[in-house]
């Protein structure tokens, strides 16, 4: 054997099976395969991408108005598997950072159709190129020779003006399982509602580099690059926007740096479990394209039990520093030191907001109980919500009518006092809770929040706060005070001199126990009223019986 120390060269051989595995492994999800084609359109400067699912004829058509391809690009780039296009380092003429590809985006839709047809016209040229790829050969004929494969194409005069570019991709004879999936129409609880079609639509809206919906200017402004011309995407004639859970409110938004990584993030909650479930967690995006599924940064794997995690969602947009760390499956990044720091940061934010949501739920519950019937006044709830004093709906907090009634039965406190106390605990130092005296407009709400949310007024004389007891045809206004029950015969209740107001001793032991406060109040007031009037025995008995009947009837 010749073992002389000479330098030799050995070729690196790439088996076609590797390509097959790569493409099959990369694009397990049909919608994600379509997303790859749409990302290519984005890189090609498309401002509009229109997609038609023509299931009846077993085909899918995608059209974009990007730069298109000339013959050379078609042959040398599009059909060149593994042709690497580096992500751009500067903004292009549309103000975009090119996403870049591993040169296998073209393969993405091939597993799902028998034939892929492409019609493309390069901007600035008059000719269009039309080619047909027998996709079936890639994935069903095991001995297909990729290296010697040929794609037939023809060139003809386009009917578009020279200055326009276009690429139309038609997936023909889509596979049966895709047809079945997109036609499926079963409603699955707590996941993407409706159908396979809805799931497909949702997935595209989640992963493609498109805009947030027009009613989320807050997100558009925060994440948008002013100079960037956005790409619009239509599916079957309907424009898609990025998914945002309904009613999701921003809890926190920041720009952060972790070593080389620079990012912007938003943490949101709809103050209810995020629907659909697939949106729970934080969506990482690199150059506006989603990386993997929404994630919780493995917070639960660290043993933290976060009961409100299902209410949190958000967006994390990587601005720079991770281009070269993206894994080939585009699902995640290499776990570098910077990435680890970023994960740790978000785990802490998630934990923090989980705790805050718990606190808010408890204090909201307390406020609902203090509000009593006023919880039905939508004006008050809207105001308190705007002022960030009320977050959850009473339905979400499981405050049933029974709970509210039970709470009311244990009330020996002026409601205004109670509301003011609860509100004062919720507001920060810059906000005042004030009691307003005097006559009030009966039509106006009993609580109002100033426009700047700095003053919350509680109208003491509002009928909603005036507690009245009706006894023997007379109305008694109810008030509360505290005194030593051992020092006076009127240990529970006393009447004012004008006999119009009943004052209850809220420190009396009977109000501390399990008895229904309303029963105690009615009995004590009733006895007081009866005995303070001169009556014969028969009338006295009659009145006592009536008092007992009325009290327990209530």
């Amino acid at each position, binding site marked *: 054997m010749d073992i002389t120390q000479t330098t030799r060269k050995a070729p690196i051989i790439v088996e076609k099976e590797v390509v097959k595995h790569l493409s099959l492994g990369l694009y397990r999800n049909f919608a994600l395969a379509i997303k790859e084609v749409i990302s290519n359109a984005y890189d090609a400067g498309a401002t509009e991408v229109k997609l*038609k699912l*023509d299931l009846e004829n077993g085909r899918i058509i*995608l059209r974009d108005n990007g730069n298109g391809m000339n013959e050379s690009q078609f042959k040398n780039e599009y059909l060149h598997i593994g042709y690497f296009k580096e992500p751009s380092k500067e903004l292009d003429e549309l103000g975009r950072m090119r996403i870049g590809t591993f040169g296998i985006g073209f393969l993405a839709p091939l597993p799902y159709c028998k034939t892929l047809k492409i*019609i493309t016209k390069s901007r600035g040229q008059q000719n269009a190129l039309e080619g047909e790829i027998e996709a079936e050969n890639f994935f069903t004929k095991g001995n297909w020779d990729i290296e010697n494969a040929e794609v037939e194409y023809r060139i003809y005069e386009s*009917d578009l003006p020279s200055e326009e570019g276009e690429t139309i991709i038609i997936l023909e004879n889509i596979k049966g399982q895709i047809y079945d999936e997109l036609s499926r129409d079963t409603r699955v609880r707590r996941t993407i509602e409706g159908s396979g079609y809805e799931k497909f639509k949702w997935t595209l809206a989640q992963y493609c580099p498109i805009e947030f919906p027009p009613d989320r200017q807050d997100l558009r402004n925060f994440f948008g690059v002013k100079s960037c011309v956005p790409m619009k995407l239509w*599916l079957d*004639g309907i424009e898609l926007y990025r998914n945002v859970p309904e009613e999701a409110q921003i809890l926190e938004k920041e720009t952060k740096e972790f070593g080389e990584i620079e990012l912007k993030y938003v943490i949101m909650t709809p103050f209810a479990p995020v629907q659909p479930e697939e949106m729970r967690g934080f969506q990482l995006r690199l150059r506006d394209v989603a990386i993997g599924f929404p994630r919780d940064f493995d917070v639960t794997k660290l043993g933290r039990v976060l009961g409100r995690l299902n209410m949190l969602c958000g967006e994390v947009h990587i601005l720079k520093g991770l281009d070269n760390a993206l894994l080939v499956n585009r699902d995640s990044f290499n776990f570098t030191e910077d990435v680890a720091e970023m994960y740790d940061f978000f785990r802490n934010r998630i934990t923090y907001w989980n705790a805050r949501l718990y606190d808010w739920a408890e204090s909201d519950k307390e406020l609902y109980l203090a509000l009593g019937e006023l919880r039905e006044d939508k004006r008050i709830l809207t105001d308190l919500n705007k002022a960030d004093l009320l977050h959850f709906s009473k339905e979400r907090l499981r405050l049933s009518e029974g709970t509210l009634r039970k709470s009311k039965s244990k009330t020996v406190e002026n409601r205004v006092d109670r509301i003011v106390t609860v509100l004062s605990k919720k507001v920060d130092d810059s906000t005042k809770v004030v009691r307003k005296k005097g006559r009030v407009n009966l039509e106006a709400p009993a609580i109002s929040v100033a426009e700047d949310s700095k003053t919350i007024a509680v109208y003491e004389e509002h009928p909603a706060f005036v507690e009245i007891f009706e006894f023997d045809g007379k109305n008694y206004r109810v008030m509360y005070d505290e005194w030593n029950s051992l020092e006076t015969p009127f240990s529970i209740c006393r009447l004012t001199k004008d006999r119009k107001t009943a004052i209850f001793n809220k420190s009396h032991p009977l109000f501390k126990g399990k008895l229904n406060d309303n029963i105690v109040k009615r009995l004590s007031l009733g006895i007081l009223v009866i005995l303070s009037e001169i009556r014969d025995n028969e009338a006295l008995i009659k009145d006592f019986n009536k008092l007992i009947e009325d009290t327990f009837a209530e």
Partner: protein
Amino acid sequence: MPSQIDDLKTSLVNDLWLPIAKKGGDQLYPRLKKHKKMKLFTLTDMNYQEVRVFEDNKLTRREDVVAWNHSHQQAYRLETELGRSKVFCEGRFDDAVIDESEALSDFFPCDILNLDYSSQKPTSHSGRIEREINGECVIVNLLNDLQTKGFVLLYTTLLDQIDLSSNNLSFSFNSSRTFPNPVDAIDDKVEFIRSALISTLKNNYYCVNESDELLIHLNRTNNKIFSIGFVASRSH
């Protein structure tokens, strides 16, 4: 399609097709007040203005539209633009309908038949307009066979320098007026087309309840766009 025709489409749609389609909707579906939901068959192009205008005016819905375009590139574009509509591309409509009328029967009956041949890249071959009218005749025969009670017919064509001849028509052409052969003057061409279309309707037991037309001159050429609309209903 010449770009001037693109510019004129707005005028055609708003000044002729929409008013006629509205009258047709009121006559064919008097009980439907809010939305007529008429089925539209249209020869159209990338702008598909008529679809949008008819949709906006509650005459049709996207899913009730069947569009036809002669070019497969345009048809693919239309597919992605129109979404839920059906789009067909089986070559030139007049060729397809004359040669394989049975294959087209799936698209009918329809309530609005918009035969806008000006959108289908008109050729300069002799006998083009007569062939278009023959195509229209096949469809009206089909609507008659399908016992369609009534429909809106919109016909639009490019009037260029090519003469017309009744010899090229495939049906008996009854007109109160005698036309020169060939028909070369523009007024005679308009009258010829109008008479021929009405003949196809009458031959199939349809009477004309409403009609209107537009003749628009194309800039920088001697060509004109002629468009005519009818509301037709069965005469017995």
